[in-house]
């Protein structure tokens, strides 16, 4: 397939890996922010391709994984209200909350539907005027514009039974929170490719400026990721940290202005609760007052018991890059993709699921 296959060429990948090895003299630690990158890095055995001097850590870039248990409990509680249809992206449904899951609610008779797009959720609202249709809005900047678009569509078409529970999160503020904590010291960050399609490269500029940490925006094919690593190593070797785009076919420095306008029209910035990290100021998107009739938080109230984290699950540490899934005692023994204990094992982009599926020692299976 065009723009995919070319970036999986094994000869080019090996050439690129050799170049990284030739260049790299310092021992460095890189973090891939995005769960999509984590998945690809493990799938293509990229950790085995890069020299020993380059240590790779996984970051918090999996929206399902970083959804706080308390927020998940709220979504689950909404399923118990009368005459509601809960719509959600597929990955969310199996994540265990404190006491139940969306899937369990569904099994118990609640109307919980998986949608591929927010467009489908609005269609469900149109087709079911007597029900309240609530969309569980998770995602980063890649997805937030699509959720904004659904609210604008509901407004234009006067669909009065459509609501969004906005749990959307922003990436640069949580990167700041990670860099401010002393737990993980980083030399470079592989910045998320598709978040950057929307926000562009400017919002990361504080990272090299204030923290001296190198930043490269990368695509998701193995060659894209290796190119990103090569540029990071080059910046770090030269002690010239900056923000570079290694995914130029998709990302422009200014991002997608149209998508951002829609996002800014509907949402304002507020705090957000991140699993494993806690409340991070200015890292979430709240629905503006102007659109509050679509805000599930305003329209429905539910009583919640105090949240409980799954016992023994180290997702919080895994998300921060403070532990690998292998350091969790439940990994592979009690916690598997068939019976996940924590969200990092549910989502295919969660580090635990990626480690489970591809292991960590096998040599580049596809390259």
């Amino acid at each position, binding site marked *: *397939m*065009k*723009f*995919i296959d*070319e*970036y999986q*060429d094994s*000869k*080019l990948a*090996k*050439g*690129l890996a*050799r*170049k990284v090895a*030739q260049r790299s003299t310092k021992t460095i630690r890189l973090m891939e922010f*995005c*769960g*999509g990158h984590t998945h690809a890095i493990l799938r293509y055995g990229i950790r085995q391709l890069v020299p020993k001097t380059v240590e790779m850590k996984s970051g918090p*870039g*999996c*929206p*399902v994984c970083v959804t706080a248990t308390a927020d998940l409990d709220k979504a689950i509680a909404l399923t118990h209200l009368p005459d509601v249809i809960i719509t959600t*992206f597929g*990955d969310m449904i199996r994540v265990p909350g404190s006491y139940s899951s969306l899937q369990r609610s569904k099994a118990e008779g609640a109307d919980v539907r998986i949608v*591929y*797009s*927010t*467009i*489908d959720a609005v269609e469900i609202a149109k087709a079911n005027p007597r029900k309240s249709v609530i969309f569980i809005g*998770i*995602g*980063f900047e*890649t*997805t937030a*514009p*699509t959720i904004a*678009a659904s609210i604008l569509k509901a407004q234009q078409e006067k669909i009065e039974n459509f609501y969004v529970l906005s749990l959307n999160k922003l990436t640069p503020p949580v990167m700041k929170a990670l860099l401010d904590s002393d737990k993980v010291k980083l030399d470079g960050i592989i910045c*998320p*490719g*598709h*978040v950057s*399609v*929307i926000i562009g490269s400017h919002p990361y500029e504080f990272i090299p400026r204030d923290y001296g940490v190198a930043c490269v925006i990368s695509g*998701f094919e193995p*060659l894209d990721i290796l*190119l990103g690593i*090569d540029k990071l190593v080059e910046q770090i070797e030269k002690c010239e940290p900056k923000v570079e785009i*290694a995914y*130029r*076919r*998709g*990302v*422009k420095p200014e991002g*997608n202005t*149209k*998508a951002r306008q*829609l996002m800014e029209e509907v949402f304002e910035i507020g705090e957000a609760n991140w699993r494993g990290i806690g409340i991070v100021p200015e890292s979430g998107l709240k629905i503006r007052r102007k659109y509050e009739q679509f805000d599930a938080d305003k329209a429905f109230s539910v009583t919640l018991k105090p949240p409980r984290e799954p016992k023994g699950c180290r997702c919080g540490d895994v998300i921060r890059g403070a532990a690998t899934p292998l350091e969790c005692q439940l990994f592979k023994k009690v916690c598997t993709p068939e019976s996940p204990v924590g969200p990092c094992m549910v*989502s295919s*982009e969660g580090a635990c699921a990626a480690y489970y599926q591809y292991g960590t020692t096998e040599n580049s299976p596809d390259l």
Partner: protein
Amino acid sequence: MCLAIPVKIVSIDGDEAETEIAGVRRRVSIAFTPEARVGDYVLLHTGYAIGVIDEAEAEETLKLLEEIASLSEVH
């Protein structure tokens, strides 16, 4: 979750487009990419085109990768 795949636009109808990838056709919203034209590849994320792929940049990157591979060749 931030997965987005390149699909080719085959026709446009207002802010929607018919796209194709590997023989699979899909209707997508191009509300965020009004500049998209028939024949362009767009990045498709949950039913929306979030960006138009810059083909010239794509070729440039591939050329760069090929250069690197040949330069670092072990003789």
